[in-house]
């Protein structure tokens, strides 16, 4: 292969994760729709995971599961990929899904309150609902809840 391809080969994962991160980040900031923001967050986070996993891979390596099962001798010539980032990312994936779940729960609540998922619409609705600050709405809500 030519030299250029070597360079691309050597680094391509990094360029991809940078691209994915930028896509996700952009969606988080610029998209008005709340679900789109959460989708963006997911892409953003998985991009970082991709970075970690890229870091762990070793050319010619194999999955970090020792050959021969329990008690077996593992062959000295086998190269294992780096297990540490895998562990970190396992944890991070869990964190990501937890965040997503909370975000979705918040979205449902927001939709119940304002009937929209669009940031601008919500902002307008809030402004209309509470011209000065939220006292009014809050008192109302406390009153309603205590009625229940």
């Amino acid at each position: 292969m030519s030299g250029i391809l070597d360079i691309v080969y050597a680094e391509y994962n990094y360029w991809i994760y940078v691209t994915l991160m930028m896509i996700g980040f952009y969606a988080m900031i610029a998209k008005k729709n709340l679900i789109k923001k959460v989708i963006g967050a997911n892409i953003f986070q998985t991009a970082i995971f991709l970075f970690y996993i890229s870091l762990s891979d070793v050319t010619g390596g194999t999955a970090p599961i020792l050959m021969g099962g329990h008690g077996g001798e593992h062959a000295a010539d086998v190269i294992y990929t780096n297990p540490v980032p895998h562990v970190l990312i396992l944890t991070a994936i869990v964190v990501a899904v937890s965040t997503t779940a909370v975000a979705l729960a918040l979205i449902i609540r927001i939709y119940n309150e304002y009937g929209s998922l669009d940031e601008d619409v919500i902002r307008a609705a809030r402004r209309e609902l509470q011209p000065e600050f939220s006292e009014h709405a809050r008192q109302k809500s406390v009153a309603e809840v205590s009625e229940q």
Partner: protein
Amino acid sequence: MSGIQESVIIRTVVRIMVPFIQLFALYVIMHGASGPGGGFQGGVIFGAAIILYAMIFGISEGKKKISDSFDRILASTGLTIYAATGLACIIFGGMFLQYSAVPLLPDTALVSKYLIDLVEIGIGITVLAVMISLFFDISPPESEAGEVEE
């Protein structure tokens, strides 16, 4: 979803599938020590099985299998297993989560293997409980369930 829920074939398939998925999930949890998988993945799959069941037979049916309070206690239990393992290590004079301190067997590696399994089970229980609870909470109440497919 109403269409799917009424389909006899799907209902039957799911009814048969769910136990097998659950079995597979248990396998994944227990197999985590020697192959890919572990408490987390297994828990998710187990949870997914019940979620699948609930999707097809309705959430109230699902809740009959696992009620809210049971679910919540299940979630606590899993973590308690984990933390109790850690505390047990302290009681036996080790550091927190120092499995080798537990004088269960002479072979410390084996002790840690079993305790790892125990811990994985704990993780699995919590994860499955939380996954189910997440789904039950986030999915629409029974009356509007039909809108999913639209």
